[in-house]
């Protein structure tokens, strides 16, 4: 019964769209303030200085594109896979920063330096989102999606087919 619930199409839609909204929401402030976001990336003391700005420009755009793809329902599995990879990256980055005792704002949803500081609850939140991403990759939900609109093959809601 739990299995039936997990693979239910509307449930899959909710997961997909929910994750997409979170990623779009997280990307906007970073795209608007790339300099401030680069500063936060530097604070983590993980990337070498030469890569920080390029990373700070590409990562938020990838978040935005993945969010849009998840909501509209095209390239759902690749977008969810990227979301998962990014979340694993965030979990590692936050854990490293916490273990070093670096006390910085997380740069998760806002580039303000007064925004939320790093903490364990952040890792738990990321792990929760990672579960959503894994679900979205696994289920390849096509309920109310562009993919289904353009490709009306039968049984397209079954597991793990195609992109």
């Amino acid at each position, binding site marked *: 019964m739990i299995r039936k619930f997990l693979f239910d199409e509307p449930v899959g839609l909710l997961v997909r769209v929910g994750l997409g909204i979170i990623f779009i929401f997280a990307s906007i402030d970073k795209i608007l303030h*790339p300099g401030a976001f680069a500063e936060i990336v530097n604070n983590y*003391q993980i990337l070498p*200085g030469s890569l920080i700005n390029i990373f700070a420009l590409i990562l938020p*755009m990838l978040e935005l*594109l993945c969010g849009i793809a998840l909501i509209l329902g095209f390239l759902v599995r*690749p977008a969810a896979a990227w979301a998962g990879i990014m979340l694993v990256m965030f979990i590692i980055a936050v854990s490293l920063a916490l273990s070093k005792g670096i*006390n910085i704002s997380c740069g998760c949803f806002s580039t303000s330096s007064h925004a939320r500081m790093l903490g364990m609850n952040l890792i738990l939140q990321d792990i929760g989102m990672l579960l959503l991403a894994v679900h979205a990759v696994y289920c390849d939900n096509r309920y109310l999606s562009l993919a289904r609109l353009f490709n009306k093959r039968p049984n397209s809601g079954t597991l793990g087919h195609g992109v």
Partner: protein
Amino acid sequence: MKKLLIGMAILAIAATVLGLGSNAMNSSGIPLIGYYPEIEYGPDSVIVPPSAQEGDPPFITLKEAFGKYHDPGTIFLDAREPEEYEAGHIVGAINLPFDWIDDYWPGVEPQLNKNAAIVIYCSGAECESSLFEGRYLRELGYQDLYIFFGGWSEWESRGFPTTTGGQNSETEKMQ
């Protein structure tokens, strides 16, 4: 699987083009390679007290101490008085005042590990408690000990991470 990887490549390329492209078009964009200076350590010389003897734990520089600070397995011990510790100490350091070591040891010992690297410091070049504490721990069988003789004064003067408060309010690492 192949389709998945192709889709991921499409997203990555699109994000790169859009991210770098929009930055290039934007008059207030940022340079692709920013300027992030390395942290200045100052003169990287190790400070050794005159009373050092053969067989003492190694003395390390500020730079080495900062390197060990970034290694999660390393424990920092603050050998100063509790009042000094409360007024400010290296983030994550445990207070083991050498002058009260018998009183404090039962509380500190469970937090240590004989195989872990331990860095001991006190006020700076004018105090030797860190050295004495290092000898004390070595007698007890701790092997991987380091004396950061530049101590609190050198650490603080560089603006490295510090915090305030007593031992029992040590939730700092997980804030």
